[in-house]
């Protein structure tokens, strides 16, 4: 009985660890609320601060939108936030092959500076395919950013 008890516990543990829900790749946009962190359109806003605008997007998002702190922290979350908010620059730089925003993403993931060129090349190749697919133009900004995020992860994984 003891044996069956232990086996049951072990089985449940293994099942929990290997469950599809846990193994599922985190989508920071859907799972961590990054989609709500887009820059507000200030043209429609009352200026909130006398000296200058000081909205604190990062803090707000982390404190109010992150549903699962354990899985929504770390380099992935930082990179996703960065990609989400600088998508326009990233796309231009990726198409051009280089730029400070691209370098920032790679640095967030700890990619060695010597490997930036090769990883950048892979991202360029991955994302070029994504951009030219049917329906890409109709995607939301968040979905496009997520596509870029996937291209980065894919390029880094293939390193």
């Amino acid at each position: 009985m003891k044996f069956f008890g232990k086996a049951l516990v072990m089985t449940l543990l293994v099942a929990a660890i290997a469950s599809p829900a846990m193994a599922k790749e985190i989508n920071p946009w859907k799972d961590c609320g990054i989609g709500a962190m887009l820059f507000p359109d200030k043209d429609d806003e009352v200026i909130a601060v006398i000296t200058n605008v000081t909205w604190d997007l990062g803090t707000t998002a982390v404190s109010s939108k992150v549903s699962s702190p354990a899985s929504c922290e770390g380099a992935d979350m930082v990179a996703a936030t960065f990609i989400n908010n600088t998508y326009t620059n990233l796309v231009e730089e990726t198409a051009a092959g280089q730029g400070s925003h691209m370098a920032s993403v790679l640095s967030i993931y700890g990619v060695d500076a010597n490997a930036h060129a090769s990883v950048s090349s892979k991202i360029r190749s991955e994302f070029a395919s994504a951009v030219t697919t049917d329906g890409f133009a109709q995607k939301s900004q968040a979905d496009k950013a997520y596509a870029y995020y996937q291209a980065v992860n894919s390029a880094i994984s293939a390193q």
Partner: protein
Amino acid sequence: MKSSHLKFVVAIILCCTLNTLAQAAVIPDSDLGSSISTNKLSTKPWTSDQVRGDNSTQNNHHSGLTPIHAHPTWRKLLHIRPGHAKSDIISAEFFLAENGNADPKAELDATIAAFLNETDTIASTSPQCQFPARYMWLRQHVPELSSVPNRLSKCADYQKWTQQNTINGVSVMFATGYLDNPASYYGHTLIKFHTPLEKGGATLTDYALNYGAAVPENENPVVYILRGLFGGYTATYTHQAFFQYNHNYREHELRDMWAYRLNLPKDKIEFLAAHAWELLGKRYVYYFAWDNCAYRMADILALVTEAPMYQPRLPWAIPIGMFYDLMDHSESGSPNQPPIVSKITYLPSRQNRFYAKYRQLSTKEQSAVRELATHIATHSTHRHPQLTPSASSPTRLGILESPAYTSLSPTEQIRVIETLFDYIEYLKRLKKNKEAYKNEKRALVIERFRLPPNATTWEDTPETPPHKSQRPTKIGGGIISDKNGNTQGGLNFRIANFDTLTPTVDQLDDNTLEMAGIQIATTEKGLAITQFDAVNIVALNTTHANLPGLTKNAWKFNIGATRETLRHTHANVWHIGFGYGKTLALGNSTTLYGLIDSLAQTTTPEGSIAVSPTVGLLIHLGPSIESHLSHANWRYLNGRQSIIPHTKWETRFLSNTHYDIRFVYQHQLEIETRLGINYYF
């Protein structure tokens, strides 16, 4: 007029007519002087000897000739200004003693006791985690604390702030002025903390420290102004990753940024970062004119630079002033001391990145950009067949198959496409529509993907850093003559900031932003005020590339007192004026503008309203000579019901950061000439 502009105008009127800057009375000159005298410029590493100041005090923090609680650094850590009795910080949680905000000794005792009683169980509320800078400083100053273990590495949130203690540099950032938001006319400052990540060009992910007031949404404009000027708001330091500010300023508001990297040793960098951490979220009383971002950034920097960056010569603080002082002290350091500023980096706005690229294009490349830009800019109103997909590819726009583009080499095509990236983003900002030109942008991106990567380089555009611009406050004197050769003496003064002829170094070039300007002439009866400008703004918004869609409308606004005509000896009418029109750049050195001007004056016996078509020409004749010619034909709609032409020609000679010579010719029923020299500070 936008509500934000209204807010600003009311603020200026209040400033000028009440002749008060709320904080001027709070900060006596003697206090500022005292502050300077205790701050010796030093770029040497921060050592315990320096912070002790007096070795006799190091073993007794409760008494002594120079008690620790009276040490300038301790008072700076508590934000108690020299000569003041209370801290500027109004958040009770910043103080460990009950009356710590007004009693530095009690706060010192409470802080030391807290550090001594701290256990190994570290939480975010533990004294070391809350007050790391106090701990760093007192540990070197109070012997009892030398036995207290350093637990900062266990403070999770603090470690996050210091990026696991990897901060290795500090830059003071300047964002240039922004005429679309009156509260941002004078620019803004941030402090950026660098980490080693930047070796890969990743300075964007570093943290930056900001200071600003918390204003409720939908605040009434008048309330906003009054509370902003007279201490009705609280303000605090906040932080974000730098890319957030970078996006807001350079991409969204099209403002240039400058980074002044400070030459600080690691211990001072850590000390500054630790103190910034202590201040996050702590509240101050905000005063728009004095206790603002410029003052507060200078305030915390003085903790480590020991340079007087309070602008004590002026009863107000503006962001650029901090950089003047910073560089004055950096450049005047002794030969044995390295400059405070080690590097100045220009971070151009999307607008200026576009201009810089466009200028670097060949004539052939510029023609291609113009052709493509014309199609792109007009698509929203006129469906153009060349914007539909080409026959060869569903994602390739027809315009990319025009001979002007296809005849270019791949490298030239890359330069055209990358210039158009900036053009489209700039255009989107001007139209305030982030959804515009999506298809065109996508087509350009796909085209750029088709071309080889890393195939071209763009040269950095050399720009003059902001601290080399002419100083904002003006005082001048000269001679005024009429057509009969009668001469008078003339004086003028302006609080801030620049006029159309000022050699500025940012996007506000060609614009005017003058506050509280006054002109005085000597007469037989004594002195007479001939003009008073409470506020005078001219936004010509000159576009430096002749491409479609880039023209912003020009506008002007002024309010003050003036002579009805040049025949009057003193300012006899109050006026308010508004103009709207267009500007056209004729090459790189000439700007033509036209406005429909309007004017309301308090003439007697009844007020008058006048309108005029106004034309003006600005000509840069060289680095030191610039001329501005304007002509208006004022048609008075009531009262005198006449037409009065007014011609003005003003030329600036021999200018530098502190001086210029101006010659002014005016004809308005009477001819008047003025020759004067101005000093700027």
